[in-house]
């Protein structure tokens, strides 16, 4: 029984790896697997860093993205949208991963 469970778990894990990982070639501009889409469709929220400055945060199911919010002069935008170390907005809205993000 134990063995059967282990085999099932192993099969599940390798199945996951085949979907989300594996060899996907040089074009990294697509999200493959369960919630496949073009990466231009991601929905972001704001994460405020310990200095009070904004970053775009996206929780896309298995993948997570973080990138600085800059103004037209290339300086960080520190808008005060939220206190430091807080993430706000619809940043978990982009993924349609059925199983959901365990974290």
């Amino acid at each position, binding site marked *: 029984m134990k063995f059967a469970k282990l085999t099932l778990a192993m099969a599940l894990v390798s199945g996951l790896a085949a979907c989300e990982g594996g060899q996907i070639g040089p074009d990294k501009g697509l999200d493959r697997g369960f919630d496949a889409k073009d990466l231009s469709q991601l929905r972001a929220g704001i994460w405020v860093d310990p200095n009070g400055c904004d970053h775009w945060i996206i929780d896309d199911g298995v993948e997570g*993205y973080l990138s600085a919010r800059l103004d037209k002069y290339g300086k960080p935008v520190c808008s005060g949208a939220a206190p430091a170390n807080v993430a706000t907005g619809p940043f978990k809205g982009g993924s349609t991963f059925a199983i959901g993000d365990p974290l």
Partner: protein
Amino acid sequence: MADIMTKALRAIMKGAAIASLGAIAIASTASAQQYGYGTATGIAGAVQGVATGTTRTVLGERYIPNIWVDPDGCEHWVMDDGVEGYMTPHTNRQGIPVCRRGNVCGVMNSDQFFATDSFHISGAGKQQLANFFRSSSASAYIIAGHTDSRASDAYNMRLSYNRAASVANVARSTGARVADVRGYGERMPRASNGTRQGMAQNRRVEIICIR
């Protein structure tokens, strides 16, 4: 039992180490023979040395990004490598973000609000500005002053900052949140300083709206 497990584990790890060594060896031979990028694993690329004219071999893997446009309208490089995701702002080589639209929601013509060399705003000017900030729906503002190229750079840096600070004071008086106040002096011209009209366009205070 524990002993057997460790032995088995060691054997597996040894095997994995040998396997990865093999991959590296394959990769390096591939790089020596094929110039350009491969398509499978252990990819190598040859780069023409610009300065020397010699060929330099780079061990690497092709990572072609997509572009994600943030809610401000600015571009980011984004890559999905299976389970990992990566993102970084798309800037030019001067560090200026590449954006498809701007967030400048107001450009104040300095001639209209300030006397020459002054950063004082008249009562009527303050009223006009206050109306702007009260009617705007932005959650915060970045205020940046600019001048034309007459007078010294240091003087213009100071004057443009003081003018931006005057505007920021009006913004704060209406309860608006000011994220930053800056003076760029003559360093970020919008038009040529060679003509009178160009210089007039460069004398300005920009208000960036953050939503």
